[in-house]
């Protein structure tokens, strides 16, 4: 490993890191900045791998363990890369009583992954959320931000086929 303490080597000069550094530089430093910076980092990289966390820790002068603690605490942040398409199932109570459980089972079976997993070909990731606030359309799934309401297990295959 190089002298570079964050361990990210030459990747630090990638344009994504430059953009992240510019974002950090533009705001007051300090502990308060951590969560906004992580939001930005995840928006840029798609996820928060260890090297990104080290980079953020160094830039904000925080222990890496603190950054890791925050990343693992909040559901929004993820340390695993996502598939090209994210299938997000609402598991709020309104969707639940309207059959979200069957939808999850059908999705897991169709994609051959568990909740939270990513298909081997990185085509789909399957996640769930507590409530989208689209309860009137329950049960609801969201694929890349497109909301599909009143989903049934029969509709799953057709919906997934639209995302290649």
């Amino acid at each position, binding site marked *: 490993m190089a002298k570079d303490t964050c361990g990210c080597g030459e990747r630090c000069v990638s344009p994504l890191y430059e953009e992240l550094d510019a974002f950090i530089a533009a705001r007051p430093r*300090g*502990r*308060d*900045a*951590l*969560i*906004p910076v*992580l*939001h930005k980092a995840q928006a840029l990289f798609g996820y928060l791998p260890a090297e990104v966390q080290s980079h953020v820790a160094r830039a904000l002068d925080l222990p890496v363990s*603190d950054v890791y*603690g*925050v990343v693992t*605490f*909040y*559901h*929004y*942040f993820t340390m695993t890369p996502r598939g090209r398409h994210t299938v997000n199932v609402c*598991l*709020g*109570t*309104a969707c*639940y*009583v309207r059959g979200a459980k069957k939808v999850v089972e059908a999705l897991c079976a169709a994609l051959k992954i568990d909740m939270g997993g990513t298909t081997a070909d990185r085509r789909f990731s399957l996640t769930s*959320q*507590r*409530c*989208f*606030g*689209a*309860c*009137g*359309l*329950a049960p609801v799934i*969201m694929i890349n*931000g*497109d*909301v599909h*309401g009143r989903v049934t297990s029969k509709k799953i295959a057709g919906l997934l086929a639209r995302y290649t």
Partner: protein
Amino acid sequence: MKAKPRAYVMVSVDANTVVIGAREVKNRLAAEIGLRGLGDEVRVVETGSFGSVSAGVVAAVMPDGIVYGHLTVGSIARLVEEHFVKGRPVREWILPGEHPLPDPETADARQLQHFGRIVLDNCGRIDPDSIDESIANDGYFALGKALTEMTPAAVIDGVKASCLRGRGGAGFPTGLKWSFCAKEVADIKYVICNADEGEPGTFKDRLIMEGDPHKVIEGMALCGYAIGATQGYIYIRGEYRLSIERMRAAIDAARRHGLLGRKILGSGFDFDIDIKIGAGAYVCGEETALIESMEGKRGLPRVKPPFPAQKGFRGKPTNVNNVETLASVPFIIHHGAEAFRAIGAAGMPGTKVYTILGHIARPGLIEVPTSVTLRDVLEDYAGGMRPGAFKMAQLGGTAGEILAPEMLDVPLNADALAKTGHTLGSGAILFMNESVGVCDFLHACIKFFAHESCGNCNPCRNGMAVLLELTARLKAGKGYPGDVELMEELVMGMKSIAFCPLGQSPAAPVLSALRYFRSEVRAGIDPDAIRPNPEHTLRTLLQLAG
């Protein structure tokens, strides 16, 4: 000078409709109207929620009072041709029973509810991105009144006299809470608006912010003036993109109009607001966890005391209120505590905003006086059960209590509910028919808590795991004899010793379910099942461990 338009089309762009293409419909509508040369006559306006969440993209034509539902980009050409060119409303697209602005002469009681609104009065009526429309509808009037005619102490007295109680779930008297923070002496104090609405099925705060963001800003500024704070923060869930967008635009507009910033309205009062974005943790709805999260840490609740009023954000005196609570304040200051107390029930006056969901004909967003009953909500607002018949309702999100048919006639306010041993919760009502099993439902609730438990304290962390196991057994019909009593004892224990409200929460759904549906829960017990001996299990584990 431009002529006044003959019609306004109000397209409801809110959290529910934006994801199914409301913006696209609005843009197409504006384009089509322009194409037909009607741009000066018909104005397309983006507005907040009308209250309906199952009618697709909705738009109201004013002053005709016609509401169209299930609009798509494809239906626009015909709509404009028929309604605006030929003057014939398209009957099959009209939503029955929707009246965004009922006529006071002919409206019935259900329609009249819109006039009794305090928090949502502008929601679905004004363009939330236009500060002028807010001001034309009495926006910032209360702030002006407070800054020019009232001392901070008088504002607190007014809020105290109104008997306003927190709308986030706990129901603590707001005026009293403000007075704690007001008496602290510090170089800086903070007002925090808690918009980390995480209770599944609850999205009232989101629709308030999206429909009338200026009301929230005004409420925060009034609180700031009353307690001597100069900086406010709105802590919003990261998923609430439209709320963030509209609140940001509203804050910028208020700054430009001198309604935020230094020397507001020429007075000596300085106040500004920033937005903090959450990253998804249910426990951050608890005020000290929220403050930790704002400071960039894991959202673990703090030990109280000291309370946030003494040592809150960055160790300074901080007042945290829910969105709806703050949005109720401008009415109180503008019209007086008397006017507020005249609405709803005596012990908890005013109105309450709910999202109503589940097996009902018209799921949506409502604001009702605190004197209405569950039956009123079901029959007058929800349009009755569909499909099936009423079995139970959960009042107040996942941490809410389960109510049986015999509770249908109890008024929905903290006092009346307390008399029957219940609480009001956060502002969601989930109606369920007989297809929902009590054990299955409890298991789903506990699963959520177990997932959201922050792991800080033992009763919550381990209690949830045991509850999850218990409910899973019961719903599968494999419960051990004694499981029901164990569950009861466990949730009562968690209620008394868990560190924060999250760990205390399962008591509400579990105990109320046992109160009304004990025999159904008991049916989940297998009388022949034998509970494994814990000592025996421990010995096996130790042997395995070598």
